[in-house]
């Protein structure tokens, strides 16, 4: 129920890029404890690239390399939206991607959450004035968290998941 409550909180929290303080491990352990508790050990994430330059995805992929290995903390990128709890969106949102984005979102079972990653999702980035861009993403989906950066570094994304879990826990408490 508390997860549902959160859905109606229409406020996006910003995660700013960090200067590499705090190791991934410390954050990761904390993240794992939260995910274990709230999501029964598995937080499933689905990505939609709505029109990026691909650097944002490259950094999200880097989360699986041995330096971060996000899966050990219980966070897994999944193939089907039907398995996901969270939708991560990157990119400036092109007209051509609007439909696939919304369809993917629809297919995630409730309760569901959106995290936007990269400056493009917030402002449209360098492409904002284009005839073929209909973003930013916030016009169509409410994000709980926005991760700043062009692109956000992997560690900023780990922090974003931590913050996300804090929000979920806080709303569980109230």
């Amino acid at each position, binding site marked *: 129920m508390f997860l549902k409550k959160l859905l109606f909180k229409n406020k996006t929290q910003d995660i700013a890029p960090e200067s590499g303080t705090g190791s991934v491990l410390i954050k990761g352990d904390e993240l794992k404890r939260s995910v274990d508790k709230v999501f029964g050990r598995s937080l499933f994430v689905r990505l939609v*690239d709505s029109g990026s330059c*691909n650097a944002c995805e490259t950094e999200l992929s880097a989360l699986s390399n041995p330096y971060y290995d996000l899966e050990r903390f219980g966070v897994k990128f999944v193939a089907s939206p039907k398995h996901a709890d969270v939708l991560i969106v990157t990119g400036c949102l092109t007209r051509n991607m609007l439909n696939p984005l919304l369809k993917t979102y629809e297919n995630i079972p409730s309760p569901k959450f959106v995290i936007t990653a990269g400056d493009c999702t917030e402002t449209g980035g360098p492409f904002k004035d284009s005839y073929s861009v209909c973003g930013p993403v916030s016009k169509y989906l409410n994000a709980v968290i926005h991760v700043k950066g062009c692109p956000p570094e992997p560690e900023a994304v780990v922090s974003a998941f931590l913050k996300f879990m804090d929000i979920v826990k806080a709303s569980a408490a109230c």
Partner: protein
Amino acid sequence: MNKIMIDKHDIESDDFANSAENLKTSGKYLLGIVAADERVLNSKFSVRYFFGGTEGIEEYCVKTDESFRSISKICPAAKMYEREIYDLFGLLPEGHPDLRPLMLYPENWDSSVHPLRKDYNGVIPEMKKYGGYKFKEVLGEGIFNVLVGPVHAGIIEPGHFRFSLAGEPVLQLEIRHFWKHRGIEKVCEGKDFKETLDIISKISGDNGVNIAISYLEAAESILNIEITERAKYIRVILAELERMWNYVRDVAWIFMDIGFALPAQNLFGLQEELMRLNKNLSGHRFLFNSLTVGGVNLDLDSAKLKAIEETLKKVENIIKDSEEFILSSSSVLDRLEFTGKINKKTAEELSLCGISARASELPRDTRAEFPYLIYGRLNLKPYILDGGDVFARTALRIKEIYLSKKIISDLSSNLPEGNIAVSFESKPEAYNYAVGNSETSRGNAFFYIMADDKGKIFRLKYIDPSFRIWPSIQYGVLGNIIADFPLINKSLNLSYAGNDM
């Protein structure tokens, strides 16, 4: 200044179409087709065909009011460019075999609106369905279709793939791209050369440096800027570092897709180290903002050079291991050899470039063909292999990682003194144009830029190597099993962002 010399010809559309066959048989290949609305200049549209060959670059310029002769049937590589021109300018390529919309989807765009015409009023059509898109059909007993995407089952960019199969082997693959079409060429119009650099660096972020180098070749040639030797060296070092981490990642994905996690993770770890090195050198993991019009934004002092040297040692060790893993394992070779074969004829017909061309026996490497910066002095010979398969493409990447490493080491130890950037006041001559080239990790990146009468961008066209190479995968998968598609796809590792623009 090592400005690229272009052999220019003005020609009538009919004459050009009739002579296209000769051009092809004389060994020249299509580098790209660039249309522009130049009605303010001469009340005509122009369609410029750029051909590459052993004697440099040739340009054929056709002027037109509303249509021009398609050369797609003679030169299949022209197909996509002509469809693009029909979409964005509304100029009809007469006799084109397939004029379905390309980037402006009828599902949300009114096809009578052509955004790259100068008289386009900037009004964006209402978001509604204006028409549909017809896919090719394969019919027959036992044929079934597998539709994939645009949203894929991983951290990948969007694209739609339709496989038609009879039993296991793929009979046909049709790709629909341009989901990420961001209209970048139009966004650049009216911007100055520095603003444009920021935008084009984000066409395809993982190749930002090499794409920017191509842009700067054109921009600095229009602006008449000669950059310093030191800046040239640093640009080449950064370009090779970018190529290296791209190749390392590409090879890692090959291992990943055949389920061989150990070498894959070693290489992903190495990619991370290279990106951390980038951050150490430039403050950014992708080297964003490292280049500027007139030079570079970062200098390499002895501490940074040392950091490069240390990382390069690791590269050598891990790449040696990977080579071993491939060559000593028959099950790895079994997955890579003869998979996703693109034969030489197909590569020629589609005017492929980069690794995809070199793995199919075509010696195409911009660094050697149309040298820029200091590449001409390095006397590079393109490495080629004749397999045309996943193995050939993987082996070439490994070979070229050593090459990049050698270039970086040699240049680092001979870095000339001097400033890293020159200031400039120059304004480009009105309606002057230039082209730029560079070799990215995927192949030739080509820019065409024309300045307007205020010194801003009048027309900018970028051709990403991926735009040229994507159609070839439709041939590469034929007869393969669908389970090998991800592997074939990764062996080309094309960019959707660069293709869709």
